[in-house]
């Protein structure tokens, strides 16, 4: 046996010899400075990108987009957790896993969020801004881990941040916006070049958080599992994946366990149940149809998305086959494909489903350009790619042409879409209505209100009895039971014109028959008319 010396690596250098002489603080400083030296250039690229992303998201976020149904509900649940310790101001019926508003409530608790703004939506917008910044940074990080150049990573992050769809949908307080950073984080950790247990454990926990934030994230599990499997090293793959799977399942199991301990896992008379609601969501919800068929809800939604931005949506789809050539990009391609399958399969498609397509579409578009340009890192799973080959000129020309094409298309289409998002100053009608109510309606009146102003009426205006969120009026048995009178209706007009009104909100419609319009704000479906209900009418 010859005494050849091996190159010192982390394992041959004895940790005990190197570490103990340094005190903890010093070791921390050393590792921070090492980290900065390694990632300094990335930071220099990323910080300006984040500034641009933040500005594009923040300017005008209080007045655009218009109010829709869900955000106020999530904010009311976060408020309820923060101030009352319950998961919902009404009985929690397992419509979504609660991690999203638990995070919001935590942030509110730590920063006194609900008191820092005049409206709960101010706080909600702040949370969404933070989520957007995190997502943008993680798109860059994930791009780098997929083997992109710094320019590619920064381009992906910028496209993600400036895409009109991501600006408008990203401003709404949707759980998907909170789940996106967790999902991206899961992929970033799953592709950790260290290939240790910590990375895959972190990936599994991030994915668990994503699924607990918005359960639709579960759709992407095959893509993440594939990425983890491929990235794992044969020497510790079994242990790594077992630990990751165990920890992820354990974290996600907390949700059904919560229901089980409450006695609300299985359906039964007289109580809500997780499985009951899940069964309804999966099976009985009206189908949106397939995107491929004309005149379906999914098709309308899709057309609406396309008018805001077709570049990333269709570009991602076009880039998909190119990216299949690069093994490291295949799990991302699978993620996008899974998102598209939801659109095609013909079941219920959530309004904000586009949010689950965007990050992967961006990464594939940029990834395809990188692949065309001859970047070899996305094409191998090795930590250190073989010596970089010289790229043939035609590849660079082609990639440059593609990049310019994407940028030119964006420059042509996006500004027109982004302008109203950044410049609208008109106050949303519901906001005006809330102020009018606060000025004119005594605090002891029973108000049926839209969810987006509920927290403000309760928290800032102190209405007691608490206003009733309009869609709880006919769905929550407890609300029905305790209802003795209704004094005011502060609900957008679309509730009165919706086709499913008679089945969905019979009490609301009945109350309006016994009410007079007092004032109104805005026009059309988005307008709000405040009604005063006759005191002789009993619901």
């Amino acid at each position, binding site marked *: 046996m010859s*005494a050849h010396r*091996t190159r010192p690596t982390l394992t041959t250098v004895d940790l005990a010899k190197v570490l*103990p002489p340094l005190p903890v603080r010093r070791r921390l400083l050393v590792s921070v400075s090492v980290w900065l030296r390694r990632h300094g250039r990335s930071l220099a690229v990323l910080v300006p990108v984040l500034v641009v992303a933040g500005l594009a998201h923040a300017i005008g976020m209080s007045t655009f987009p218009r109010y829709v149904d869900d955000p106020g509900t999530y904010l009311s649940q976060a408020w309820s957790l923060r101030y009352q310790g319950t998961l919902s101001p009404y009985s929690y019926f397992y419509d979504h896993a609660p991690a999203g508003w638990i995070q919001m409530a935590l942030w509110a608790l730590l920063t006194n969020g609900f008191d820092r703004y005049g409206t709960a939506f101010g706080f909600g917008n702040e949370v969404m801004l933070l989520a957007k910044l995190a997502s943008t940074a993680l798109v860059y990080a994930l791009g780098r881990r997929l083997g992109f150049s710094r320019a590619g990573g920064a381009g992906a992050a910028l496209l993600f941040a400036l895409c009109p769809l991501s600006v408008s949908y990203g401003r709404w307080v949707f759980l998907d916006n909170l789940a996106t950073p967790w999902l991206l984080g899961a992929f970033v950790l799953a592709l950790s070049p260290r290939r240790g247990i910590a990375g895959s454990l972190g990936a599994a926990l991030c994915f668990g958080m994503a699924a607990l934030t918005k359960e639709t994230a579960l759709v992407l599990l095959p893509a993440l599992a594939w990425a983890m499997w491929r990235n794992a090293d044969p020497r*510790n793959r*079994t242990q790594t994946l077992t630990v990751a799977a165990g920890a992820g399942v354990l974290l996600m199991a907390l949700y059904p366990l919560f229901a089980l301990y409450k006695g609300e896992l299985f359906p039964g008379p007289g109580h809500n149940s997780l499985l009951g609601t899940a069964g309804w969501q999966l099976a009985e919800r009206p189908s949106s149809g397939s995107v491929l068929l004309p005149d379906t809800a999914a098709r309308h939604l899709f057309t609406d998305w396309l008018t805001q931005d077709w570049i990333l949506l269709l570009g991602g789809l076009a880039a998909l086959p190119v990216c299949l050539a690069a093994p490291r990009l295949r799990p991302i391609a699978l993620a996008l494909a899974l998102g598209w399958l939801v659109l095609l399969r013909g079941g219920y498609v959530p309004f904000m489903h586009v949010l689950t397509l965007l990050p992967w579409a961006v990464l594939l578009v940029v990834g395809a350009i990188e692949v065309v340009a001859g970047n070899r890192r996305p094409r191998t799973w090795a930590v250190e790619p073989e010596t970089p080959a010289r790229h043939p000129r035609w590849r660079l020309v082609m990639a440059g042409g593609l990049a310019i094409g994407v940028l030119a298309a964006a420059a042509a289409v996006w500004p027109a879409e982004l302008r109203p998002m950044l410049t609208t100053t008109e106050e949303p009608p519901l906001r005006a209505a809330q102020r009018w109510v606060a000025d004119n309606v005594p605090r002891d009146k029973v108000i049926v209100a839209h969810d987006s102003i509920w927290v403000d009426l309760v928290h800032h205006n102190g209405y007691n009895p608490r206003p009733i969120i309009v869609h709880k009026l006919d769905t929550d048995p407890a609300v029905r039971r305790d209802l003795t009178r209704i004094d005011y209706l502060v609900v957008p007009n679309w509730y009165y014109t919706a086709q499913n009104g008679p089945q969905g909100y019979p009490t609301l419609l009945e109350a309006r028959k016994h009410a007079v319009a007092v004032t109104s704000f805005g026009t059309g479906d988005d307008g709000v008319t405040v009604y005063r209900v006759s005191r002789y009418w009993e619901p």
Partner: protein
Amino acid sequence: MPVRFVAVGLTAAALGMVLLLALIHAGWPPWLANAATVLVTLQLNFLGNRYLTWRGRLAGSPRSTWTRWWRFHAARGASTVLSIALFPVLAPRLGASVAYWTLLAAGAVLNYCTDRWWSFDHRDTRPGARLACLLGVSAAGVLAAVLFLDAFIVVVSLFMLVVTVTTLAFQLYKWWRPEHGNPARYGSPDTPRLPGVILVPMRHEEAVAGTTLDRLATLSHPNYRVMPIVDYADDQGTARIVRAKAREYPGRILECPYPSDHPVHNKPIGLNAAIERLDRLGVRFEWVGIADAEDLFHPDLLHVVDYRFRRTNAAVVQCGVQLMNFNADPDAVPQPGGPPPPLRRWWRANTSAWWRAANVLEYFKWFQSRLKLQAAMGIMPLGGNTVFFRRRFIDTLRARYGRAWDEECLTEDCKIGILASVLGYRVDVVYLEELVTREETPSTLRGLLRQRVRWMQGFIQVFRSGEWLALPTRAQRLLAVYVLGFQFFQAFAAALAPVALAMAIWHKSPIVVTLLASLPLGLGLLNVALDVVLLRQFSRTFGIRARLRDYLGLIVGAYPFQLVLSLAAIWAILRYTLGRNNWVKTAHQGAHLPGAPQPELVGSR
């Protein structure tokens, strides 16, 4: 003395009352004023009793005032908790004021007793008192748990969470990063050049002594000796074999008689005697290795040891030891007293496979991961064999303590490891599958229990003897507490996990508490899953087939195994409390040897 005790108590109470009124008057919130008063009166009581009531008795007592202070506070705290707990029970039956005064009087008597026989006792603590104290503390703990069940569940769950997470993290160290499992991580050994000696303590080892010595005498190393340690008067069967082997390998095997003046037989006494004998014989050696009587070292083991000594400059090289007989194959079961009829063998093999598999995996995880991590952190309880010490370390120990191994300690191997850490010597851990020393599990579950009791008791001894307090950094001392207490933490954490959850559900604790109590159990399940994965890996690495029933046994037996460990922990604590420190040796049957040799075959090559 009772008079003085009462006088001190009344004075302190009066002063406390004055203080309380003054504080309330000064506008302190009542809870703060009460707490401050309690603290002050406790100190007054302590000082008064120490320097007035028991002054005469304590003159010249070796026990420090701090010890007494701790004992005093523990005892008073317990009696206070007890009184507070009993008051709501007694008050409705006796009336509030009667209950109050009764409890006060009973508390005073109790306090007097604990002061007299514990806090301010002038003699060494007797086993009975220690046991009473242990029971008292347990009773107070149980009472507190019953009274504040939710808080108790939270505390216990957090504790279990810490233990299970660290257990998982530590035992997975080898797989934290891919390069931890690099086959070339130990380098390639060159020609050995350090002379050394392998010590083999033997006692009633007729079944294995011949085979072991044959193997040890023919290892691949140019310059080493083997020194079996046998009691010639007491153990003539083994002595005969050893003598024959010494004749067969002259110059290789040196005999060492067990010191005849010792009434007790244990391993450290024999090892110390061997070192002295080496001195007397003038044998040149640079390292000392330890083999148990049934250990078949790999022929190339000394190559690696020699190389690692020189390459890493370590003072200790610990090589892997691996229990092998995990499966339900009848040949895998150690059979004391010859093979029983086949049906019984089959039955015994199948009914013992569950704990043998768990035991085998413990070694697999211990030597591959935990020891490596502990070596990296510099806290190192060593294994009992296949461990090699550099001469300078042995000499330092002898210069400091007069002998290398602690003869009173039940786990001298753990102690010497801790001493190495304290003295700043480096320990190198080598686990190469092909080089591990193969061993057998104890032959019965009772044997396993006894072995564990001994280890745990030994760890208590090492903990109490306090050498670890001299470790340089606070992090290391904390880790030492963790490492020495680990067997207890793990046993209790695993056994308590389902209990805590069941209590939380039964008591209808808040849901967050119940969820918290579920986490340790969930991690326990993950641990079982990892065990299954590791068993598969083990069976592949060593080419021993693991059958479905082996996996099932491992899964089903996971919790009972933890119960056995908990039982061992309780037993060890009781034995330590009662002062029973004698040695319980594990019997060796040779089931790990290929084609288990029979006693009559031993001696013929």
